[in-house]
C-alpha cells in the first residue's frame, strides 16, 4: 500500500498550524521568563514588605 502525496493545500495548512504553535509556545516562554524576572526582583511585593527587607 502506498501513501498518497499530500496536496499542496494540506502542506500550507500544516505550515500555518506549525507556525502558530511555535508562536504560542514562544509567547508562553516569554510570559514565563518575564514572570520569573519580576517575581525574583520583587516587583509584586507590597511596598511595606520591601521596606522591611
Amino acid at each position, binding site marked *: 500500500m502506498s501513501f498518497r502525496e499530500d*496536496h499542496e*493545500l494540506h502542506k*500550507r*495548512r500544516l*505550515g*500555518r498550524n*506549525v507556525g502558530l504553535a511555535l508562536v504560542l509556545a514562544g509567547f508562553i516562554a516569554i510570559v514565563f521568563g*518575564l514572570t520569573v*524576572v519580576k517575581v525574583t526582583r520583587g516587583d509584586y511585593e507590597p511596598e511595606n514588605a520591601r521596606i522591611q527587607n
Partner: protein
Amino acid sequence: MSDASINTSVQPQEAGFGDYFALLKPRVMSLVVFTAMVGLLAAPVAVHPMVAFASILFIAVGGGASGALNMWWDADIDAVMKRTQSRPIPAGKVTRDEAFAIGITLSVFACVMLALAANIFAGALLAFTIFFYVVIYTMWLKRWTPQNIVIGGAAGAFPPMIGWAVATGGVSVESVLMFTLTFMWTPPHFWALCLFMKSDYKDAGVPMLHVTNGRRSTRNHILVYTVLLAIVAVGMAFTGVGGPIYLAVALILNGLFIAGAISIWCRNEDVSEADGYKREKSFFGLSLLYLFLHFGAILVEATLAPYGLGGW
C-alpha cells in the same frame, strides 16, 4: 469525507503562515526593532535583558500590527501600484477582513503586553504610535495632502522614544532628538523613492509631492530637508547620546547626504531619465545606510560609556 470534497470546498489561494507574516511588513519592522533597541540601550537606566527582549518584541509586534491595518485600509491603492501589487491582500492570499482582524488583535495585544512587561507609559506611547500611523497618516493625511509623508513620518520616528520610555518610564531631550532625527530623515528618503517610482502614486491618486507640485519642486524639497536634517544630526553629537564617534560618523554621512541631495537638485528629468535615475536610486540606498549608521553610532557610544570611552 474524501480529499476531493475538501479540495472543492476551499479557496485555491488559501494563505500560508508566511502570507500572514508579510502583512506585518517585516522590512519596516526591522527598522522599528533596531531604532527601538538603540533608544532602550542608550537610556541612562539599565533594563533586565529579559524585559528588554520582550519589550522590543512587543514594540515590533505593535509596528507590524499597524502595517497590517495600513494594508487593510490601502488595499485598493496597493492593487494599483506596481511596488505593492504583490502584498498579501492585492495578491489574493489574505482577505481584507482577515488583515483587519489580525491588525486590531495584535495592536491591543502588543500595547497591553508592553505595558505589563515594561511600564504603562511605554504601552500608551505604542498605542499612540499605532493610532498615528493608521488613523492620522493612513486614513487621513495620505490621500489628502502632499505633506502626508512629512507629518506621517512621525509614526516611524516614535520607536526610539518608546525604547527610551521602556527604560526610563518617560520622555527626555535625548529621546526627542532621536525622534527628530528619524522624523527629518523620512521626507528626503521617501521623496527620492518617489522620483524613480515614476507614475505609481499618480495612478493610485495619492497626492505625493511630485504628483501635486512637480518633480522640480520635489528636488528642491529634498535639498532643503537634507540640510535641515544635517543640522539636527550633527547637533545631536553634542547631547547626552552623542560623542566623538557619533560626531565623526555624522560629519561623514551628512557630507555625503548633502552632496547627494545637491546632485539630485542639479539634475532635471531628462538627465535622470537618460541614466535610469541612477543618482536618485543611489541617494535612496545611502539614506538607508544613513539612518542605520547614525543609530549604530549612538549604540556604540552607549555601549562604550560604562568603560569611560563613550560620550564627551
